[in-house]
């Protein structure tokens, strides 16, 4: 089973340090970890660092092996936030590209069945032969999720994958991600702005603020009014709903209260 551990991980762009000293215990396959934090907290940079797309300090270990910075790991797949493209390709072709790199020009039936299965799983068969440029924001996100799932990675890094989806689709996609994580023993790191969605679907929550990791653990253990005030600058209550699930109710801004 795959595992991921970060030791002193940092990322900077020029002189601007966006992330520093991130240490985590070993995160194991089969878990969904929600990464939350205010805008520009370093969530995307953390994902890109784990995926090997940017250089940085510290050590990222996947299943005990330190990854080479600047080189993507086949076992970790990163879904970027901005998914707008103007390529003249169909959805079907774009999913094929996700796992068809190098090798033969011919496409086998098994590979096509793999695409069919992903389309079915996300219930987007009707988009199969639409051009990528014709998709709405939400449809683009679904297609990007399909591409990442088609790669069948061990570690899935989803950067705000549901920001353009309606409520129903958010629920469907997050449920699917959670189910696949458990079934395939895949480690999923997912950044979501809707904190209640994060609490509902994640096994663990990782909180980033002030360029650092400030908390990591089970949702009901770490999400507190004090943490929410520190990270988001809001006054909030945390209630526990049926099924032992925490739920955040925002009451106002800390700044206004002061």
């Amino acid at each position: 089973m795959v595992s991921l551990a970060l030791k002193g991980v940092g990322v900077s762009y020029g002189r601007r340090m966006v992330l520093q000293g991130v240490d985590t215990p070993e995160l194991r396959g089969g878990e969904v970890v929600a990464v939350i934090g205010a805008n520009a907290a370093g969530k995307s940079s953390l994902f890109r660092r784990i995926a090997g797309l940017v250089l940085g300090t510290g050590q990222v270990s996947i299943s005990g092996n330190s990854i080479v910075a600047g080189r993507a790991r086949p076992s970790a797949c990163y879904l970027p936030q901005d998914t707008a493209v103007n390529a003249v390709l169909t959805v079907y072709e774009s999913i094929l590209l996700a796992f068809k790199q190098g090798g033969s020009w011919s496409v086998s039936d098994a590979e096509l069945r793999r695409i069919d299965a992903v389309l079915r799983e996300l219930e987007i068969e009707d988009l199969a032969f639409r051009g990528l440029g014709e998709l709405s924001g939400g449809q683009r996100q679904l297609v990007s999720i399909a591409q990442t799932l088609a790669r069948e990675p061990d570690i899935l890094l989803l950067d705000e994958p549901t920001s353009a989806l309606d409520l129903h689709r958010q629920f469907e996609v997050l449920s699917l991600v959670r189910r696949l994580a458990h079934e395939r023993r895949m480690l999923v790191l997912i950044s979501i702005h809707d904190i209640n969605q994060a609490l509902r679907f994640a096994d663990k929550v990782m909180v980033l603020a002030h360029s650092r990791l400030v908390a990591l653990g089970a949702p009901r253990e770490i999400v507190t009014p004090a943490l929410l005030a520190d990270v988001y600058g809001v006054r909030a209550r945390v209630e526990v709903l049926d099924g032992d699930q925490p739920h955040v109710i925002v009451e106002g801004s800390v700044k206004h209260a002061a």
Partner: protein
Amino acid sequence: MNSQVNLQVSSTVTATAPAQGTEARFAYRALSFRRRLILAGLFCLLLASFVVDLMLGPARYSATQVLDALLDPAGVPAALRVVIWDIRLPVALMAVVTGASLAVAGAQMQTILNNPLASPFTLGISAAASFGAALALVFGVGLLPIAADYIVPINAFLVAMATALLIHVLSQSRGVTTETVILLGIALVFTFNALLALLQFFASEQALGAVVFWMMGSLTKASWSKLAITTGVFVLSLPFFFRHAWALTTLRLGDDKAASFGINVRRLRLEIMLLVSLLAAVPVSFVGTIGFIGLVGPHIARMVIGEDQRFFLPASALAGAAILSASSVVSKSLIPGLIFPISIVTALIGVPFFFSLIMSSRKRAW
């Protein structure tokens, strides 16, 4: 099951969604088959244009005579054999290879820079080649100590390659976007045009005529040796593009996604840029400036076949070759006995044709 799949008539890029219960893979197979048919159609168009190109000239021959001369040179009159094999064939083949090279170079520049305006012409590579050629034509300055016959093409090639490298080095600088690269290319076009004007200002009347003629582009400069070099570069570059077909297609999904899918984006971009610069510089250095093909060929290919490089690459090559071959035909047909400079014809025919395609296309090509 294939018969249940309907493909749209208007565009090959997309097909209708598969009917209820039909797996999408059958529609994909049908789409791939249709794209192969389009490639075959483009090849037939090119072949027809090539034969007509051989038929036309001061002496006009029938298609049968041309085919006889090609297939059985010993069995036809000597005059026919000499005209076809020694005069027209190198020129007609040069049109095909040059058109294919420029279109493939344009297609890959557009792919790696993610910009529809990229082409050897708009990035200043053609203007650089003109300046290098003019240096030799006006002052007899050779950038390499080589045979006088090759001073002009070698100068053109070296300056074009140096420009391509400059574009690449600057494009790798931090914060440089693909739009910046295009702007840089436009700035280079103006710079080289100004330098060219300066050379023309100092040029003798005879040299001035030679520079102007070179800049207009002419396939009549073709010879078997120049054709062999141009074809060699084109043919040798193809395996590299073919090997990276999937990666190049994936580049169009964005750098982050491509990198996440395991592609070394930076390295691929460098290798492709160097190769397409060579591909663009060699034909231009032999036949002069021929604009438009590198821009329009890929656009036509993209409109009819999409951007899967397995189809897009050959379609671009065939479209570019067919356009330049057809332009060669037209350049000989406008006024009997007179051959118009090829770049005038490509622009005059290509622009209206291109606009009509854009305006009639229901799908956005970018």
